[in-house]
């Protein structure tokens, strides 16, 4: 084999096994899922492909409530994550000094404790006889017999909690990367601290804000653990529906149609973002 041909083949040899794995167990299942979503039939007799596009319209109109809830809960949680973690990331990047590594460790610490178990801990924190509910009642934020567990508030608080590091880390990385001389230049040119922050720091941190928002919003949209453990069927999100359709009711076409709709919706978002900033930025900011 000529050296040139080998050069050209080499990267594909390196990529081959991993790429094959992803093609078979990631891409092909999605294609297969698209086919399943257009099938009709029932669990006993099996499903056949009939190009039943009405599966989509049925699924969306039957579960628009859960779809809406997923988007609203995930959206609110993303905004809360941004509000909570921007000052945290800013402090860590610019003001933390020797505590920087410690703060970063604390931000990722929850990752090393079981996700389900941490959510169970939230059940305990928000339980009806817990002190948090007591404080909320005394402050009049909820009424005498009001509860936190089994409400939208609890589910959103849980989602916000679980995905906070996904927002905080990309924000920190992009703030840390900013050349501080730009900010100094702004203040030297008589911009106030606020103006410099608004006109220099925030725009330069935008890739981190976008990446963090995606990394929070996407998993939050599909999450069903928080709704299952901290909510009731009245708080169920689209993930809960997909899971029960797939594993309990065995209504595969509806489940596939629902998860495909969710996927397409998210892919459009990513595509728009990738076009706006380039995927390199996205992956970089995500690390």
């Amino acid at each position, binding site marked *: 084999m000529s050296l040139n041909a080998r050069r*050209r083949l*080499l*990267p*594909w040899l390196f*990529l081959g096994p*991993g*790429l094959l794995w*992803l093609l078979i*167990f990631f891409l092909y*299942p999605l294609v297969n*899922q698209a086919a*399943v979503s257009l099938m009709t039939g029932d669990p006993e007799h099996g499903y056949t492909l009939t190009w039943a596009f009405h599966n989509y319209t049925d699924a969306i109109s039957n579960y628009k409530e859960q779809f809406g809830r997923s988007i609203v809960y995930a959206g609110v949680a993303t905004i809360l994550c941004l509000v909570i973690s921007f*000052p945290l990331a800013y402090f*860590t990047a610019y*003001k933390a000094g020797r505590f920087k590594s410690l*703060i970063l*460790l*604390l*931000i*990722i*610490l*929850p*990752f*090393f*404790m*079981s*996700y*389900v*178990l941490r959510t*169970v*801990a*939230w*059940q*305990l924190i928000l339980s009806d*006889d817990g002190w948090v509910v007591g404080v909320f009642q005394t402050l009049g934020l909820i009424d005498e017999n009001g509860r936190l567990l089994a409400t939208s508030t609890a589910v959103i608080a849980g989602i916000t*909690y679980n995905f*906070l*590091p996904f927002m*905080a*880390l990309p924000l920190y990385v992009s703030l840390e990367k900013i050349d501080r001389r730009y900010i100094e230049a702004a*203040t030297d040119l008589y911009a106030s*601290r606020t103006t410099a922050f608004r006109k220099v720091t925030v725009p330069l941190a935008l890739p981190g804000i976008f990446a963090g928002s*995606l990394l929070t919003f*996407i998993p939050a*949209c*599909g*999450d069903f*653990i928080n709704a299952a453990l901290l909510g009731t069927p009245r708080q169920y999100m689209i993930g809960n529906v997909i*899971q029960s359709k*797939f594993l309990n009711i065995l209504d*595969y076409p509806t489940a596939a149609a629902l*998860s495909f709709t969710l*996927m397409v919706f*998210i892919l459009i978002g*990513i595509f728009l973002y*990738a076009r706006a900033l380039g995927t*390199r930025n996205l*992956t970089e900011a*995500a*690390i």
Partner: protein
Amino acid sequence: MAVTETSTPTPTRPAAAPRKAPGRGAGRAVDWALGIWSVLALAYLFIPVFIVVLFSFNDNQGRFNFTWQGFTLRHWQHPFADPDLAKALTTSLEIALIATAISVALGTFMAMALVRYRFRGRTTVDFFVFMPLSSPEVVLGAALLGLFLTLNVNTGFVTIVIAHVMFCVSYVVVTVKARLEGMDRHIEEAAMDLGATEWTTFRKITLPMIAPGIAAAAMLAAALSIDDYVITSFNAGQTQTFPLYIFGATRQGVPAEVNVLATMLLVAVLVLMGLNVIVQRRLSKRDRARTAA
């Protein structure tokens, strides 16, 4: 993604020279507010973890472990008392080990190809590898189960491993890529100029240099695998993993032994991370000493 952050020390920038700016007092107030806000945010992140650890010492009656009854070491003495729980944890550890080994092997080579070679279709592959990271887990899990159902594959241990490798590979690629991109290409070129073959260069130069990235990727993959509930719940069949056991137990109350085991895992990870940092420091010190000599 998180592990890389701590394993590669971020270069500290020289502190900006202190300047007398108008509104310095207001600035200090803002700094204080930022500090307090950060402490509160960290508390929000830390409290549930603390509660899990704390309630591993709770002297509770029965399985119900929701209110504090007093301190005991009882649960720590027999953490593996429940055979189902012990089995679930061993299964999770086995799966994590296998899935990590496979995904690190596959992902490292993919990262090498993506960073080291300019070839047609590179951007597409780059984007494709990133896609599993940006798909909701419920979609990945459901789609994979759909495949297994279509092919009449019985779900169980093997299908869980397949699923875990699938989502870990992308994380490995991203982590190792970050390390490779920060590496000086010239050192490898020098080795090859001095007559080393590509394979020798890879073994003696490239591999040792990206080893910290690979270690970080392996830890990340293992952590993700041990903790995964969503994708596993679709592809587990009758097999119980640690997260599946916990979720199943939430109905009757999670036994305190679960808190003990989760705390042990947390401590193990922290010790590993600490060791990783110490080894890195040692190595870079040795390198510096060598360069100086």
